[in-house]
């Protein structure tokens, strides 16, 4: 099995008519994802490579029965696009867009929790989600992942996720689902959301968690693992030697006031029984050992 999305998931692309949306929409479709609709307020009735365009998410849901949406809308429009998707009736929203203001994120995060508690938002500023062999929503190169499990991956970084998928594939290890939660200060989906889903997914036997400096999401995940996760976890945290007070590429990757350091996160994870690698390769090797022991 997989978490959040599988071969039955029908997806709407908000921004399918744009350059990024049409490019990744096509790649996702070629991978096998059910790309059933796009939206554009002024282009309803047209199509992109045969995928019909509707005026908004609500109409697209009504016509296609889609349950998920993927947002390739410029940052200024993301807040509106997220709420449009939730109001339109989808229950899983992937916001790929980078550069969304933190106040917008905090606003729609809380608005969703209050008015649409069943909606799971992934991102913004994330590579998306892939259940290898079944469904790929976002910008991950599908062919670098081996299908089938037993490993589930959750990560704050795009390229480090790809690296992990690729290394596991080279070791002939499959992945149930790989979730990129993104590098922004208010991610819609947390490590804990994914850990919880992986823990209940029978095909996921082990979990790989890739974190980075900034915030306390890894520490909270460590607490959760200690109390609720029975499956083995390997981890890697990027930014051990990052200087304090500097944003390292991602808006959320910053050590401020001595908080959010990689050391503190690694210690918390180790204390929760997680096997922590010093670099991505080492974390991959630790996971290979875990899988070999099954």
């Amino acid at each position: 099995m997989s978490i959040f999305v599988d071969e039955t998931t029908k997806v709407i692309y908000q921004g399918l008519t744009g350059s990024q949306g049409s490019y990744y929409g096509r790649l996702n479709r070629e991978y096998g994802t059910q790309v059933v609709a796009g939206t554009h307020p002024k282009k309803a009735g047209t199509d992109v490579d045969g995928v019909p365009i509707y005026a908004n998410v609500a109409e697209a849901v009504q016509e296609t029965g889609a349950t998920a949406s993927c947002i390739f809308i410029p940052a200024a429009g993301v807040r509106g696009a997220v709420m449009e998707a939730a109001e339109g009736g989808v229950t899983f929203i992937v916001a790929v867009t980078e550069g969304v203001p933190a106040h917008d994120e905090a606003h729609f995060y809380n608005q969703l929790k209050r008015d649409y508690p069943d909606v799971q938002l992934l991102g913004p500023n994330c590579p998306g989600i892939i259940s290898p062999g079944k469904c790929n929503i976002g910008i991950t190169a599908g062919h670098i992942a081996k299908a089938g499990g037993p490993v589930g991956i959750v990560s704050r970084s795009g390229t480090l996720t790809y690296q992990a998928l690729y290394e596991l594939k080279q070791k002939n290890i499959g992945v149930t689902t790989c979730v990129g939660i993104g590098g922004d200060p208010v991610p819609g989906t947390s490590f804990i959301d994914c850990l919880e889903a992986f823990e209940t997914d029978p095909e996921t036997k082990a979990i790989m968690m890739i974190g980075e400096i900034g915030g306390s999401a890894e520490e909270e995940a460590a607490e959760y693992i200690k109390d609720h996760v029975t499956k083995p976890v390997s981890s890697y945290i990027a930014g051990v030697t990052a200087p304090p007070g500097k944003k390292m590429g991602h808006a959320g990757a910053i050590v401020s006031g001595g908080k959010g350091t990689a050391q503190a996160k690694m210690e918390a994870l180790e204390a929760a029984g997680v096997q922590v690698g010093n670099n991505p390769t080492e974390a991959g090797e630790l996971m290979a050992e875990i899988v070999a022991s099954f």
Partner: protein
Amino acid sequence: MDLFEYQGKQFFAEYGMPTSPGQIAFTVEEAVQAAEELGTPVMVKAQVHTGGRGKAGGVKFAANIEDVREHATNILGLDIKGHVVGRVWIEKASDIAEEYYASFTLDRSAKKHLGMLSKEGGVEIETVAEENPEAIAKIWVDPVDGLNEEECKEWVKAAALPDQAFDGAVDILMKLYEAYTSGDADLVEINPLILTPEGNVHVLDAKVTLDGNSIFRHEDYAQYDETQTRDERETAAHAKGLQYVGLEGSVGVIANGAGLAMSTVDVINQVGGKPANFLDIGGGANADVMAGALEVINNDPNVKAIFINIFGGITRGEEVANGILEAMQRVAIESPIVIRLDGTNADEGRAILEPNLSDSLLMEATMLDAAKTAVELAR
């Protein structure tokens, strides 16, 4: 984007918060002129993007024009924790009865806005938090609801501010929240927020960090972008739109993706080297971006070797390899380059690089080996 104190005060004033009249001065003469116009006594305050100005001698009281001249002469050009003072804020001096602290920032864990208020202001809030945490009254504000006045009043009561400061504090805090949200700030901090002997509550210092991602709806924020503290390398990288952070070492780093770039910096340290920078060129890694990145790294006199660490996802290995070779033709690189290319079509990409390898262009199969080689070359 960090604002200077005076920019922060002007930002607060736009939202109707009471601040003292003042003027910015870049020279001693300008400082003197400002003081003459404002009327002494004034404060002469260094404008730098760092704390601890007072201890470093960057904040002085001037009773008369002679004092202003003396202090401005001493403060302009002063080095405060590596920040050289280029401008001073001349502000009408205030009488202080009491000093408080007030701030709003995002609590990433609670995913709500966090307001902090304390009647122990004028000192570092971290110190108060450590020594006397009960002295800080906290409020968590749901971004959807915003801060309402009743909650704000309860909050001020919880902080036990004296009665005469109550109304003024509530007024300022409501406006501070408005500035924080409407202004898309990561942080707004007033320390100290003062009560004057006449019973007025007043902003005496301002620390503001704005969200760079919000510029699309705040066109005037471009002015703050221009006054960010960046070294020469960071300025050049910023102009090219590259995600760059200058570091102190000798191994130049180019990687695609923030996580991989962070990881590359870590691995260089792990094998005993010192990275010269963090540089994320994004997912594509085409020739244009690569050439821009190499130019920035090449202009860093500390760089003795360059480590290009690329993972091909949707971008194929041969595109990456061709991009690197093309970029190398455009920029005359002075340091040896070590490449690690992995991911989609990595073999094809490596085959393209193979015939071009030399003492100044090396290739390694793994990130760890590439880091070791680059560190060795930088010695």
